[in-house]
Structure formats: structure tokens, C-alpha cells
């Protein structure tokens, strides 16, 4: 508990940093993004004054002090006012993000947990059979698969399993004839559509966990307590999982934040390849249309989501490792 209380201020400070970075970015850039955005809206129809102010607070205005702009910006964010989208005019940005976020959360969340479990277990196996066939195969293939660009793996999967073999749908998050609802048939359809993107993320994301676990585990296998357990005649599976792996898994978790960053980046590209209705695809559409309000809000939401996930893993780490709780 004390560990958690110690972590909360650090988390809040990082959160503040990310929100401030989001405020500074458009203001540090050449040109005036807010004017460019507002000029685009001019031809589209009426924009309500409060939306206008929200856009200016996010992207910057030439007049007004930076401090007052910052106050307005924080106030707008606290109330979820991010202005309106240019690409999907006149939809509010917040509504678009709320629609897209569950798709990415479900996809990235599931894949991250799966990649961690599968990768770690294979890493244990590779370390246990060091320099045997499985180890060589796993190490070499993971070194290459983590070097695959995510979108390329996605394109290949799409071509082979979607186009040539026709096993999976090649685009979208659900069938064209369906609309999102809470029925089993819709969930089944959505899961079916998510298998290829998920497989893409899994292939590229698993390697890091495997290699990390293998390299942590090898020194552990030389420890006295492992040799002692072996001398006592414990079954090797028990030694590997209950003695060695338990101690080797902790350093693997410390890299979680960065790993999550990679998967989120990868999911953006993967969602573009599969036209998956998540935040990555939305970000892509915002970028190609120079839809600054939508882009800036998406960047903020993605960053905050990663920070929160990271914070949760930090807490989990404290629970798993009594040494850092002090």
C-alpha cells in the first residue's frame, strides 16, 4: 500500500508532463495549426463558439497569453471538450474517440497479455533447453520476427490468409451488413475479424518477451537453489517453472512500458493495413486529411492510455516483488 502511495505522485507528474507536451507540441511547430484548421472549417458549415474555443485551446491562438491558453486547455480537457473533427464534420472529436477506443483496447490488451504469456513460457523452454534445437530455432526466428515491420507482417497475413486462402476477412472490424450491438453474433463476428490483426501483433510482439525471458533465465539456472532443487530430485518442470522462472520473470516485467509502446505503435500500422476501426486507423485518417483537432486529441488519449497501463503494471510489480516495496 505504501508502495502504491509512493507511485501515485510519480504517475500524476508524468501524466501532467504528457498533457503539457500535448499542449506545447502544436505551439512549437512552424505555422499556426489552429488557423489552418479553422480555415478548413470555414467552407463546411457553422461551428459553435464553444467548439471553436476548444479547438483554439488545443492548437493555439496567436493572441492571448500562454498561461491563459494553458488554463483554458486544461479546463477543456477536464470536460472532454476536444473540438470537432474536420474529416468527420460535424462529429465531435470526443465521440469519435469513444467509438474507436474499445476496438484498440480489446485488440491491443488481449494481444499484449497473450504475447507476454506465450513468449515468456517459450522463453523458459528455450533457456531450459539451451543450445538445443528448440532454443536455436526460437532465438533465430524471434530475432528476425521482431525485426519485421508490423505493417509488413500484416500485409503478408492479409495476402496469404485473407486473399489467397480466403480464411479470414481482409478489412474492417465487423461484417459490412452488421452494426455494433451487444449480441453474441456481433461479438463472434468481431472476434473473427480481429484474428488476423491480432495474429500480426502477436508474431511481431512475442519475440521480445521470449528473448528477454531466455536471457534472464539462463543466469538463474546456475543459481545454487536451482542446483539444490535438482539434487533433491524434483521433477524438471517444477524446477523450471516454480524455482527458476519465478525469479527470472521480474526483469521481464520492467520492460513492460516500453513493450506496450511498441505494441501500440505496431497496432496503429496494423489497423491501417486491415482498416480496423480503432484509434490507429482514426489517427491515420486524421493525418492524411490534416485534421489537427482529431489528431491532437488522439495523441493525448493514446499517451494517457499507455501511461495508465504502465502505472497498473508498476503496481503489479510492487505486489510481485517485495524488495521494491520498501
Amino acid at each position: 500500500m505504501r508502495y502504491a502511495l509512493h507511485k501515485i505522485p510519480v504517475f500524476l507528474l508524468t501524466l501532467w508532463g504528457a498533457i503539457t507536451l500535448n499542449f506545447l507540441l502544436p505551439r512549437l511547430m512552424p505555422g499556426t495549426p489552429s488557423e489552418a484548421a479553422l480555415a478548413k472549417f470555414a467552407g463546411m458549415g457553422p461551428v459553435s463558439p464553444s467548439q471553436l474555443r476548444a479547438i483554439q485551446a488545443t492548437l493555439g491562438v496567436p493572441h492571448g497569453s500562454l498561461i491563459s491558453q494553458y488554463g483554458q486547455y486544461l479546463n477543456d480537457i477536464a470536460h472532454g471538450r476536444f473540438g470537432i473533427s474536420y474529416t468527420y464534420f460535424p462529429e465531435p472529436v470526443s465521440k469519435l474517440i469513444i467509438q474507436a477506443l474499445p476496438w484498440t483496447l480489446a485488440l491491443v490488451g488481449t494481444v499484449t497479455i497473450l504475447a507476454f504469456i506465450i513468449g515468456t513460457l517459450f522463453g523458459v523452454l528455450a533457456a531450459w533447453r539451451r543450445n538445443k534445437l528448440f532454443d536455436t530455432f526460437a532465438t533465430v526466428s524471434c530475432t528476425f520476427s521482431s525485426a519485421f515491420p508490423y505493417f509488413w507482417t500484416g500485409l503478408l497475413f492479409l495476402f496469404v490468409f485473407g486473399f489467397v486462402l480466403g480464411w479470414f476477412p481482409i478489412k474492417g472490424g465487423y461484417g459490412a451488413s452488421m452494426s455494433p450491438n451487444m449480441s453474441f453474433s456481433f461479438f463472434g463476428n468481431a472476434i473473427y475479424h480481429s484474428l488476423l490483426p491480432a495474429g500480426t501483433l502477436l508474431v511481431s510482439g512475442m519475440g521480445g518477451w521470449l528473448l528477454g525471458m531466455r536471457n534472464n533465465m539462463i543466469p538463474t539456472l546456475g543459481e545454487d537453489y536451482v542446483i539444490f532443487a535438482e539434487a533433491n530430485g524434483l521433477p524438471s518442470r517444477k524446477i523450471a517453472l516454480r524455482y527458476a522462472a519465478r525469479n527470472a520473470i521480474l526483469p521481464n516485467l520492467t520492460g513492460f512500458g516500453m513493450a506496450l509502446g511498441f505494441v501500440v505503435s505496431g497496432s496503429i500500422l496494423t489497423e491501417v493495413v486491415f482498416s480496423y476501426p480503432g484509434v490507429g486507423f482514426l489517427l491515420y485518417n486524421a493525418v492524411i486529411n490534416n485534421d489537427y483537432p482529431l489528431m491532437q486529441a488522439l495523441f493525448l488519449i493514446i499517451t494517457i492510455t499507455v501511461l495508465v497501463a504502465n502505472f497498473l503494471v508498476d503496481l503489479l510489480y510492487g505486489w510481485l516483488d517485495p524488495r521494491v516495496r520498501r
Partner: protein
Amino acid sequence: MNFPLLDNNIKNLLTKEELAKKLSSRSSNSGTFIIRAFLTLWENRKARVGIAILGIFILTAILAPVLSPYSPTSTNFSRSAAPSWAHPLGTTGQGQDALSQLIWGTRVSVFVGFAAGALATIVAVTIGLVAGFVGGVIDTILSFVVNLALVVPSLPLMIVIATYIPGRGIGVIIFVIFVTGWAWGARVLRSQTTSLRQRDFVVAAQFSGERLPRIVLREILPNMTSLIAANFFGAATAAVLAEAGLEFLGLGNPSIVSWGTMLYWAQNNSALLTGEWALVFAPGLCIALLAASLSLINFGVDALANPRLREHK
């Protein structure tokens, strides 16, 4: 965000490096040092494969005008042709020879990888040294910025910056990659500097009246060589992949010839759905091989610093 075990590892690693240095030679000038480092790298099987692949790509980049059968931008051929003897990888939707594009594209990827990797490493070394050596408030502020930059997902940040910057090109790509890619190195090098600062030889140098730049350059920096090298190869790997991703999304200059823009055009012309898989397969494979070669070399660099990871014969 704390990485306590990692920091411990770095401390352990240092002692071994120092030890190895003491054991291996009394006088080491930089020339023999580079040769020795290369030989140790070459002994590592993974690093050897990596060096070989990287060597082939570098040669291809240099010899592109000799190797490529046609001009990469010439659009004189029939469009979207299937692979044939005249065009081993087929032609693009604009009627360019895909193999020539692949060969010329090597230049961009190798250059961006090395340039962005080097810039990110320079920034990482500078920030790591300053934060680790100066300490105090400056260290606290820098460490906060570093930790923030570490957890902010890099691709969205690169995308946002690249979208705001007017103009498209390799310069912009290199800029966004290095602006977002220095944090990990800065963190590692900062902990290394912090632990080195308290070593006897650094304290002795301070007491003997050496000036700060000399202590940093002559006492601290040489003890971080392998970490800096590992950081460079790591940053270069990330840069190669990031460049491809950004260009694929259309944030590069689509009129230059690179692997990323080849993929961008292949996707725009729906090359996969017309069965022209070679246009997607070949550049992606090259990106993967180049990135993998850099990470393979890094296995060797790790073994250079940490004898525990060396392969047993």
C-alpha cells in the same frame, strides 16, 4: 517508472568491462582497440551473420548505379507486369522496374538508419553524461524528461510532429526519428555515468585538478564504449523500422525511391489484391533483414561487455 534491476545490471556490467580492460592490455591506443573490438564481435556467431548482411547492404547502397539494371525512376516499361527475366521482381503500377527501385532504395534505408541512429546516440550520450555527472536539480529535471519520453509511445509522436512540419522528405523523417528516439539510451547512459562518477579513478582525477571536460572525455566516456555502441545499433534498428512505417503511412516524400515508398505505392495501387505480391514482399524483407542484421550485431556488442553472454565453444 523505475527499472531497479536493470540499473543493477549496468553496475555489474561495468566492473567486468573495467576488469577486461585491465586484463587485456596495458597500453591501448584507439586503433588496436577498434580491431580488438571487431575481432571479439566477429567471434560471436550471431554478430558475424549480422556483419555479413549489413556489409552486403552497404555494398549494394554504394554500388547501386552499377548493380541496378535500369534507372529506378524510368517509367518506360509496361505497368504492373509480373516477374520475368527482364524484370525479376516485376514492374510497379507506374511502370518502373521494381528490382532497380529495391537496389536504389537501399541507400535511403541505410543512410536514414545510420544518420538517425548516430544523432539519437549523440543526444543520448550528452543528456546521459550531463544528468549523471552534474546531478542535483538538473539531473532531476532531465530524468523526468527522459522518463516521460520513454513512456510516450514513439510512433504517434513521430506522426504528429511529421504532420505539422511543412514539406516531406528524408530530412524530416530523420528529424522526427531522432527527436523521439534518444530516451532509452539517455536513461542507460545516465545510470552508467552516475555509477562511474563515484569510482576511485574519477575521484582521483578530480582531486588531481583535472578539468571537467577532460574527466568526462578521457575517464568516463571510454568506459561506456560498448554501451554507446549497443545504443547506436539499437537506435539504428528502430530508425530503419520507423522510416519504413512513416513512409508507408505517406508521411515521407512519395517521389523518392526507398523501400518505404515502394510499400506505400504498392499499397496505394492495391498491389496485393492484383496478385503482385513481390512488390510488397521484397522491400519488406529487405527492411526486416537490415533491421535484423543490426540487432544481430548488437548480440555481439552485448557479449563484448558481458562475458556471461559469450557463446561457449
